Every structure is written in C-alpha cells, then in structure tokens.
C-alpha cells in the first residue's frame, strides 16, 4: 500500500515553476530513492511535500488522507519527517538539545531516552560532543546530527535530502547499514542521494527526476541497469 503519495504536483518559487506535474508514491516499509541532476527539483519536491512551499496544483496523500494543505508542523506531528537539505540545525543549541528538538512530535516524546541511545550508537561522535554547540561542529558532524535528529522523531515516513553529503566514506557505509536496520524495523524511507550507484544499491524502488518531471521509475535494480540512467547519472 502506498503510504505517501504525490499526485500531479506543480510548484515553484515566486513566479518560477520548478515542478511540472510530478507524481510518485512510496510503499510502506520500503526504501525509495529519488535521483536526478543538480537543480532537477528534488529538494523542491520534498519541500512541497512538507509544505515549506505550498503546492500550486496537485495533492499529497498520507495514509489515505489528503495532507496537501496542512501546515508543516502538523505533518511532522503525523510522522512525515524530513531531514532537510543544508541540514538546518539549531546552531545555537547543543547537540543534545537538537536531538531533543527532533523528538518534538507527541509520538516521539515517550521514547526519547531509548532513541537517544540508538542514535548515539549509530554516531558515537555525537555522544562525545553532546554538549557542543551544533553550529561549531564540522560539516560531516553536522550531517550526522541532522540525520540523527530526524530519527529522533520516530517517523513513519523519513525523507532524507542528500544523505551522504560531506560524510567520510567509512561513515557512509555504516550509515547505509544503519538505515537498512531501520527499514527492517518497518520504517518507510525516501532517500535523495547523489551517489546514485549506492542509492540504487540499497533501495527497493527508484525515481529519476529531470527538470521537474519524473523521467523514469522502476525497481532499483532495473534502474541501475538502465542504459540511460547509467550514462546520465552514473558517469559511465
């Protein structure tokens, strides 16, 4: 069953249209990846889903409910959580306070301690620096914090924009494995990832976005072998 569905969405900034009738759906318990060139509109799509920018047309459905016009915070409260591009940390607050902020939705409040443990295990560096002001962390550390903060929200659907951005290779591997575990625990996820090869390697289903439209979609394995995808996004 599709837990999150985007139907014919158009949107943009001011007068500039970026999305031209984009549709995609995410199956429950699966990992979907969204790839596409720089400026294709991936981030814009996620922002539209969250309501940071309003869809001009079309609708967003969650669990069979039209959530197109709910405010952002209400969506987060329902379990639709985004780890945004550019991290968007609370730079003046400590690492741990950031994580606590992640646990703002009511559904997450009961399990703060358990979840803290979980993310600290995933990213030991964060535990080491729990009292550091997040704005002074290194780029990669900030990325870890952003992902960890998303997990703290106990999402039903977790969308991560640029998962591996700025992370050291060894950490990317660890992270992919952690996400795998989350998926096994039943979390539905959407990854926006520049490392197309890896993204398609760990995901179940993939969408390729080009100029605000879905260009190709299909099971990840098929996409990985698709000639067009290989030449345009994998660099061979």
């Amino acid at each position: 069953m599709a837990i999150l569905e985007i139907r014919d969405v158009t949107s943009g900034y001011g007068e500039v249209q970026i999305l031209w009738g984009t549709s995609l759906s995410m199956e429950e318990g699966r990992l979907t990846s969204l790839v596409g060139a720089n400026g294709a509109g991936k981030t814009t799509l996620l922002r539209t889903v969250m309501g940071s920018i309003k869809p001009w047309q079309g609708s967003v459905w969650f669990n069979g409910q039209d959530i197109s016009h709910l405010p952002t915070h209400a969506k987060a409260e329902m379990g639709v959580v985004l780890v945004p591009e550019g991290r968007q940390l609370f730079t003046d607050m400590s690492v741990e306070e950031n994580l606590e902020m992640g646990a703002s939705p009511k559904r997450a409040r009961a399990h703060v301690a358990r979840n803290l443990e979980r993310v600290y295990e995933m990213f030991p560096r964060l535990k080491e620096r729990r009292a550091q002001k997040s704005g002074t962390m290194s780029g990669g550390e900030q990325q870890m914090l952003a992902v960890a903060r998303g997990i703290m929200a106990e999402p039903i659907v977790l969308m991560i924009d640029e998962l591996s951005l700025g992370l050291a290779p060894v950490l990317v591997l660890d992270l992919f494995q952690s996400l795998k575990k989350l998926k096994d625990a039943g979390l539905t996820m959407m990854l926006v990832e520049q490392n197309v090869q890896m993204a398609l390697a760990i995901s179940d289903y993939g969408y390729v976005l080009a100029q605000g439209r879905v260009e190709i979609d299909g099971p990840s394995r098929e996409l990985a072998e698709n000639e067009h995808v290989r030449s345009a996004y994998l660099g061979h």
Partner: protein
Amino acid sequence: MSSPNDTQLAATDTKTGLSAVLAQNAGSFVGLILPVAIILALTIWPTITGKDITRESIFTIMLSIALASSLNILLGYTGYVSFGHVVFFGLGGYVGFYLMAVQGWSLWLAMPMGGLAAGLLAFLLGKAILRLRGGYFALATIGVNEAMRAFINNFKPFGGPVGMTLNFQVYKDYGGAARALSLAFYILAALTLLIVIISYLVRTSKFGLGLLAIREDEDAAEVMGVVAPSAKTWAYVLSAILPGIIGVLFFFKNGSIEPVPAFRLNFSIEMIVMVMLGGQGTVLGPIIGGVGYQSLRGFLLTSPLFKNIQLAVAGALLLVIVLFVPAGLVGWLRNRFPALRRVLQ
C-alpha cells in the same frame, strides 16, 4: 542574525541592480535622475508657491531626507543599525553653535567644524564599537548618545543643562531673520543634494560593493578580501559628517540649543523608520521615506480632524504601510514595475 537558510525561501528581489547598472549604463547616471529631480523640485517649490510655510514644511522634510540618506550609508549599505545616530547631529550642532554663539564665528565656518567634530567622533567610535555585531552595536550607539548627552549636560563651556542661545542680532549679519531662515533652507537643500549624490556614488562604487558584502556576511566578505574594519569605519564617518553639518544649521535657525533636543533618541529612531519605510539600501528609499513620513506627520499634526490623536493615527497608518509594504516603498515599486528598475535605484 538570521541564518542564511531562513531567507532562502522568502528571498524576493528587493535590492539587486548594481550589476545591472554596471552592465547597462556604466558611466551614465540613470538611477540618479529621480533622486536629484525630487530634491530639486522640493527646493524650488517654495519659490513657486511663494509661501513661507511651504519653505518651513519642506525644511523639515529635507532635514529628514538628508539625515536618513546619511544613515542609510551605514544602515542600508553596511547593515549596521545605529540607534544613536542623532549623536552626530547633536554634537555637530553643539560645536558649531558654540563657535557661533560664544566665539562669534560665522555660520560658514561653523558648519564645517560641526561636520568635522561629528566625523572625528565617528572615526574614534568606529575604531571602538564597530567590532560589535547586530544588536550589540545598535545598543552601543544608544550608549554613546546617552553618554554624550549626559556629558554635555555637565559641560560648562557648552552651558550645561541650560544650553546656549544665539543673540538675535546675529541674524542681522545674514540680512535679518527672514533672510537667515531662507538662507538656511537653501543651504540645507544644497547639502541634501550633496548627500544624495554621495549616496549614489557610494552605492555604485567598489567601496559600496564592499559595504554590501559586509552587510550580507561580514566574515565571508573578509575572506573575499574586503577590509571590513576600515570600510565600516569610513562608512560610519561618511554617514556622520553631514548630520554634524546639518546640526549646526538646524540650531542656528532654531536660535538656541539644549542637550535634550540635541540628543533626542526618538529622533534617531525616526531616522531609521524613514530609511526602512522608503527602502533601505537604495538611494531613493530615504528620500521617499523622508517625504512620506514627515508629510504624514505634518498633515496629521495640523489636521483639525486628527490633531488631538495625531500620534496614534500616524502610528496606525505607519503600521499599515509596514505590514503591506515590508520591503519599503522602493522595493515594492521595483517588484511591481520591473521595467522601472533602472530608474528606481
């Protein structure tokens, strides 16, 4: 202040155009046409109507334009909010007034000295408090203004709390009170024109680009090679000199000077309001803001319908403007009429 990401979503085109100016009309001064035209129109208007009251009303407006335009160099271009900008008006006024009233200097010599004093103060302050960022700088300028007022209050040569009064006979040297008042008006008009041109030149110069860079992100600007400490200091000095000169002119015309009116904090805030109202960081903004704000206040003060609650009505009108035209009138016009961008600098 706000993180760069916040502005990303709300970014609207309010302050572009420098490169447009550079590309399309380097060397020509299209953006200067409107500001200069407005100042000239205001200057000759009293002659056309032949009424002294027109001259006096425009004096108030012109004073505001000049002060707001000066402040804009710091506030609009450099992004530093000076709450205490009136300190330059007051100090310049005091120094000049002292020279005229006590030392018998002429207005012509006293004015540059007032400007010099203000510029010097700004230079010293620049070394000291321009290191502060955001709100802390704004607060420090309040501190400077209050310290200066309190100091003058205790400074006997300047008359302490009593201030100083200009002997009425002084006006005789300028052809009597009537001539002196109209002379003051034309001097002010010339000064206003000067500051508007300076403002334009700064806006379209390399120096100005450095200031804008500082406004947007001072650390990044320094990494790019903008020598922020000195650029800020000179912007501060530039924005202080004219208020210093005008202070002398204003109190010369006023006939007396006292600490409270010379260093009235609310006046500083009104300057900021005028800059914001017109559109900060533009040449035209402070002009429109000054004309708009002061005509509104002037109208309400003397309107039989509103004069008893003029302050509240002015506040309400201002609020409406702020809410619906937050980027200032020039920003709004630029967005509304993109074709006019080159003219609306």
